[in-house]
């Protein structure tokens, strides 16, 4: 991880951005929908990586913040008739507060205990979304989210998503490459030593959790409007596991890795579903391959290939 982006990485980012901007020019509704959803999942996976890749704690309940952001935005827009900006901003704030509250408990623990506790909190969110029928719609889901007129059009919504995701990703990039991000890595690598140097390790992990949760909330809020509905499955623990696999597939020790993982997994799921109903088995096998052969994910694989090519020249 270098401080400034290398020239080739910068070029890669600009080219992908240019490609993303030109997507609606192809006039394909299917393509626009797929890319919109990939962008949402990419942000979701990138946010999770702040906890996993940077602070080194495995959250197994990240879907909770995605769902909190999504449901809050849905309720404010639809049940209360708020305008887009106040509703969106409030959802982000609500997610941030919720993540801060949960992080207070979770950062007292590490390792497996941390993972279990994040899972338990996400299931609490799931249980509330499931049982609080009058507000969330229960297991029927919150259907018919009112999407503000300005983005109530496929191409407009796409650009709205692109702008939000790009802005959020840029912000995340600066956060992860600031002194804060560096300190997080120090905590991940050796919490005891970081503590001796005077770093408040628990506070750092708390911040990492809050940052991750908040950005997941943004992804959730966009997701709800895109599907015009929020469903309890979004908060279920298997959803947390899926985004964890996306992060891992892309590579958790690289900033953009999780976004690539999200895109790869999403496209694979679409393709697999056309041939067989056994996507879970395919996903399970992908996961086994990553675990046994690709511990650093696709980004690690790319790095290996690159050094191999460089070495053979």
């Amino acid at each position, binding site marked *: 991880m270098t401080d400034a982006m290398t020239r080739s990485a910068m070029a890669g980012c600009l080219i992908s951005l240019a490609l993303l901007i030109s997507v609606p020019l192809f006039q394909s509704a299917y393509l626009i929908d797929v890319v919109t959803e990939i962008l949402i999942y990419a942000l979701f996976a990138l946010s999770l990586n702040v906890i996993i890749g940077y602070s080194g704690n495995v959250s197994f309940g990240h879907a909770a913040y995605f769902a909190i952001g999504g449901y809050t935005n849905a309720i404010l827009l639809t049940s209360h008739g708020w305008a887009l900006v106040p509703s969106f901003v409030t959802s982000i704030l609500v997610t941030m507060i919720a993540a801060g509250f949960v992080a207070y408990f979770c950062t007292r623990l590490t*390792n497996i205990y941390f993972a279990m506790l994040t899972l338990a909190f996400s299931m609490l969110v799931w249980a509330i979304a499931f049982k609080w029928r*009058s507000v969330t719609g229960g297991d029927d889901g919150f259907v018919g989210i009112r999407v503000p007129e300005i983005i109530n059009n496929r191409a407009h919504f796409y650009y709205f998503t692109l702008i939000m995701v790009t802005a959020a990703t840029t912000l995340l990039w600066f956060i992860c490459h600031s002194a804060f991000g560096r300190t997080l890595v120090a905590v991940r690598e050796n919490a005891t030593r970081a503590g001796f140097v005077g770093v408040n390790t628990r506070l750092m992990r708390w911040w990492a959790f809050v940052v991750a949760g908040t950005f997941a909330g943004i992804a959730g809020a966009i997701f709800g409007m895109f599907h015009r509905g929020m469903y309890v499955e979004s908060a279920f623990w298997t959803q947390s596991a899926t985004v964890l696999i996306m992060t891992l597939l892309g590579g958790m020790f690289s900033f953009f890795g999780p976004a690539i993982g999200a895109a790869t997994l999403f496209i694979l799921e679409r393709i697999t579903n056309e041939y067989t109903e056994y996507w879970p088995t395919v996903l399970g*096998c992908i996961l086994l391959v990553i675990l046994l052969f690709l511990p650093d994910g696709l980004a690690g694989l790319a790095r290996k290939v690159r050094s191999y090519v460089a070495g053979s020249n």
Partner: protein
Amino acid sequence: MESLLEFIRIDMGSPGLATLVSNPKFAFIQLLNSVSMGMNFFIIAAGLSLIFGVLKVINFAHGAFYMFGAYIAYSVTETMGLSFFWGVIGSAVGLVLLSVVIERSLFRFVYDKEHLMQLLLTFALVLILGDVAKIIWGTDQYSVSYPASLSGATNLGIAYYPSYRLLLCILGPVIFLALWLFIERTRWGRITKAATQNREMLAALGINVPIIYTGVFVAGSALAGIGGALASPFNSPTPGMDAIIIVECFVIVIIGGLGSLWGTFVGALIYGFVFNFGSVIVPNGQDIFAFLILLVVLLIRPWGLFGRPETEGQ
């Protein structure tokens, strides 16, 4: 819009609570419901806790093992026409075979890997086993009948109570005692305990540690299978049941303390009580109550009621 506070409040005038206070027979039955449900959960969660205690792996696939237990019990009793007893035995044997294969072919490669790898390996199993169950048993909801000799009710003086559920109330403590005696009073139990402390030293003393790991994994998985078979008459085998039970087991072992047998026993009882009395006081509020109890426990003792604080390098 009903407010969240209103939603989770304990309604002192709720018909459920009033009945509990005024009708001792009703309260007594709720009490037995809580114990029998708690004991069923204990049998399942004990396996999860045992595996964690020795192997230090949180096995997400434990729920899938439970589901397989329930499905096998269905196949043995309803399809093959054997008695319920053989259904339970069949589930245990089936899970022993399945878990031996899984442990030998996959798990032993991840014991020295990080927690994230182990967790995700078990999640890969959840995904694959869920589909395997779908291929074998389809997506129907099956019903398993109660064993003929236990389908009636027993007179307990205060009230009649289903005999089958009474059996669970007895079976739970019996399994608890058997596990406790094994771990505390036998040579192999002590060796197993030693494996939780220092496996290098144990291997240096000439003990075959991998065999112990396999044994513990298989025993824990068999408990999930037995638990699933025992639950099948009132919890119909159906796809997706694995994802729910595993979270309930997690709540139980976190409340009790990971890896502690006593903790799992107490955690399961607490869960049974919260679930039954919670739903009497606030209809549909049982899940929220369970998580609130979990929060309270974690606030006071983050490592669970009977667990030990985590130490560096664990």
